[in-house]
């Protein structure tokens, strides 16, 4: 099987699985995979409670072979994640506060202040408990034996955690015996951790029993299913903008028993749409006056407004220095090497080997405005070269990564190596930073493909973190 180290031996964390598979009937994985599909289809009825039955959202392929991470490796990863997310929080507090890291020359001022995700409205503000990014998703890749690199930070409204939870539930149904042979750390506690974390971040006035809600743009949003899933697991109301209103700088929810005060909003709406009186006036999903209530300290927004300035691709390149500046130590998790095209030397180098690099637009996401050198035609590369020369500030470049692989059930019923990435979820509150032991593993199901996006043939796996 794959899941091997460079030298061809089975990675230690996969040994029990490998032994188990050897003694299992040959078509076991295929039959369990079919079973999973059946389960998902049947649960589809249950899932459909949340979303639209016609939507294909839940039909993202699920691979029954778990991604397994050993205890020692995870502990190091967890330390790295805590360090990184703590630094991001400190960075946000500083950017919207004293701006020491700018004065010290750690990040260029113009990169921050002309960044569309820097929100001037937040300058000089402190969210309750000084917590900015309550929920973070950090995208990691393994490029070799020696641990993980960070590909991207997600500190606005990271999604995908519902897959982490559902995939685990599915695996426990399918392979109870396999669970018995491993000591796997539970991820099911995530929603309890999240609830505790959000409650601890409530404004002081809320006392011991703050009122929480999950705010969604509505059923037409592609992540609506996850919004309702989380509201359900948290045991709180799933609200749309129209369910809330602000009076006298206090946020209320419209209920059949009259207006009910809201203290914490786990919002899955982007900054720009939160309040038509402050941001986009055409927002139909926001709450007029919400920012007034927020500024008055009467409500917690999770994540805080303006966190996007920290997960911007251009700011990403400064993250190792930011971590050093705020944590006082070297980063435990490194970045993928990145050229900042805004720097003339880097630009020169990038232009000299465009055909080997991945070039990304700083403000782009979801694979838009991106050049994958090795997969592009000469004409595409030349087109991009012109864009790059015209606006070098708008781009960064990275080497084409040799992503690590994990064993995956292939179409022939055997196991084949497929490229994977990993998004663990990190929670921050005044009580500290916690990492759910697991995450969302995305897998490129096509042989050799590096693209893990579900829209382009990607699937998901359960991620096991071993306890010993």
């Amino acid at each position: 099987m794959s899941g091997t180290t460079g030298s061809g031996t089975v990675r230690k964390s996969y040994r029990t699985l490998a032994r188990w598979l050897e003694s299992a009937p040959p078509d076991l994985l295929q039959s369990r995979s079919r079973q999973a599909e059946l389960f998902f289809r049947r649960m589809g009825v249950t899932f459909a409670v949340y979303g639209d039955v016609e939507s294909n959202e839940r039909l993202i392929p699920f691979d029954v072979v778990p991604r397994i991470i050993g205890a020692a490796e995870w502990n190091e990863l967890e330390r790295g994640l805590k360090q990184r997310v703590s630094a991001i929080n400190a960075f946000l507090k500083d950017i919207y506060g004293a701006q020491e890291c700018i004065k010290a020359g750690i990040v260029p001022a113009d990169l921050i202040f002309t960044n569309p995700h820097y929100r001037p409205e937040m300058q000089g503000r402190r969210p309750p408990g000084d917590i900015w990014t309550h929920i973070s998703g950090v995208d990691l890749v393994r490029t070799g034996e020696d641990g993980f690199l960070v590909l991207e930070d997600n500190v606005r409204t990271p999604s995908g955690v519902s897959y982490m939870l559902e995939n685990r539930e599915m695996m426990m149904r399918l392979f109870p015996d396999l669970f018995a042979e491993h000591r796997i750390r539970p991820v099911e506690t995530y929603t309890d951790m999240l609830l505790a974390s959000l409650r601890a971040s409530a404004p002081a006035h809320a006392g011991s029993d703050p009122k929480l809600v999950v705010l969604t743009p509505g059923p037409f949003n592609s992540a609506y299913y996850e919004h309702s899933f989380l509201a359900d697991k948290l045991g709180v109301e799933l609200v749309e903008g129209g369910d809330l209103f602000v009076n006298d700088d206090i946020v209320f929810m419209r209920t059949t028993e009259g207006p009910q005060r809201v203290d914490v909003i786990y919002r899955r709406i982007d900054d720009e749409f939160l309040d038509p009186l402050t941001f986009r006036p055409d927002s139909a999903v926001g709450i007029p006056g919400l920012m007034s209530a927020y500024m008055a300290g009467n409500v917690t927004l999770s994540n805080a407004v303006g966190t996007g300035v920290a997960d911007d691709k251009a700011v990403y390149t400064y993250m190792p220095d930011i971590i050093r500046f705020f944590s006082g130590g070297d980063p435990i998790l490194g970045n993928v090497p990145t050229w900042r095209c805004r720097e003339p030397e880097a630009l020169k180098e990038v232009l000299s080997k465009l055909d080997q690099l991945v070039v990304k637009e700083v403000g782009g996401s979801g694979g838009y405005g991106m050049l994958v050198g090795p997969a592009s035609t000469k004409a595409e590369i030349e087109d991009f070269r012109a864009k790059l020369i015209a606006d070098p500030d708008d781009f960064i470049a990275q080497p084409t990564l040799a992503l690590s692989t994990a064993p995956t059930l292939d179409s022939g019923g055997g196991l084949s190596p497929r490229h994977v990435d990993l998004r663990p979820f990190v929670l921050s509150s005044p009580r500290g930073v916690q990492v759910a032991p697991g995450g969302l593993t995305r897998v490129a199901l096509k042989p050799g493909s590096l693209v893990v996006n579900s829209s382009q043939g990607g699937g998901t796996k359960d991620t096991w973190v071993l306890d010993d």
Partner: protein
Amino acid sequence: MLSRTAESLYWTGRYMERADFLARILEAAVRLAALPARDGAAATAWASAIASAGVSGAFAASARTPNEKSVREYLAFAPDNMSSIKACITSARTNARSVRTALTIELWEAINGAYNGLAELGEPTRRDDFVRYLEFVKGVSLAFEGASSRTMLRNDAYWFLRLGGAIERADNTARLLDVKYHLLLPAGERVGGQLDYFQWTTLLREVSALTAYRWVYRESVRPWLVADLLVLNRQMPRSLASCQGMIVSYLDKLATDYGRRGPAQRIASARLTQFNETNIEDIFQSGLHEYILTFLSENNGLASAIHDQYLV
């Protein structure tokens, strides 16, 4: 509960009830139009169906003339009629879908099944196909009622769903009765004549009450007794008094759950008291039509009190 959730449940109840009512009106019209009678009887039957559905204005404005084809099409599935059977089922489903977590799987399946079933049936033009279409719709409302009463928790979600149904049903029964009294009999037909008699029995059939009538009154069909049955009889589940009783009981459940009574409870109770103090002779004395008009406007008033108290 979020006001939006309550509102969606309430309207799911109303739309499902209304779809059933429209199916019953159309069924009656098909039956009446088939009756051998003087010229104009059929046309009157179709015009009355439009009037009972409360869409005369919109129908006339759409430049249609009432005949079997136009009325069947308009009330069942015309895209320009926002309260056709199809539109009602679609609206019920849209409302239900937005509050899926508040519904049981069985209830959702009943509503979604109605929507899918209608889509499969298409827009039948042949009379026997059309009658099957109407039977399907009536079956849908039984499935809906059954699923809600057998599977839903008796909490505010259930009360709002039922409340919507009861408000709509009261409105529908009142309108049905009024149309029979004032529109149905073509000029030249004798009150108490054969057509008149047939119309009354059809009306009873429409509300599944022909047998009930005979059980209760043990007499041949007489207009004032039909009115008594449909207005005041508390045993008759579609009577105005029964609907009012249901509305009061659902509002009381809500008041108990929430620990607070409001204008909706006060208005509803006062109306129920009036029913208890009224008899059919008094109603006829002062005019059934006037009585029904007052009832309809009070019913609307109660609906907006419910809206203001709970749904915004």
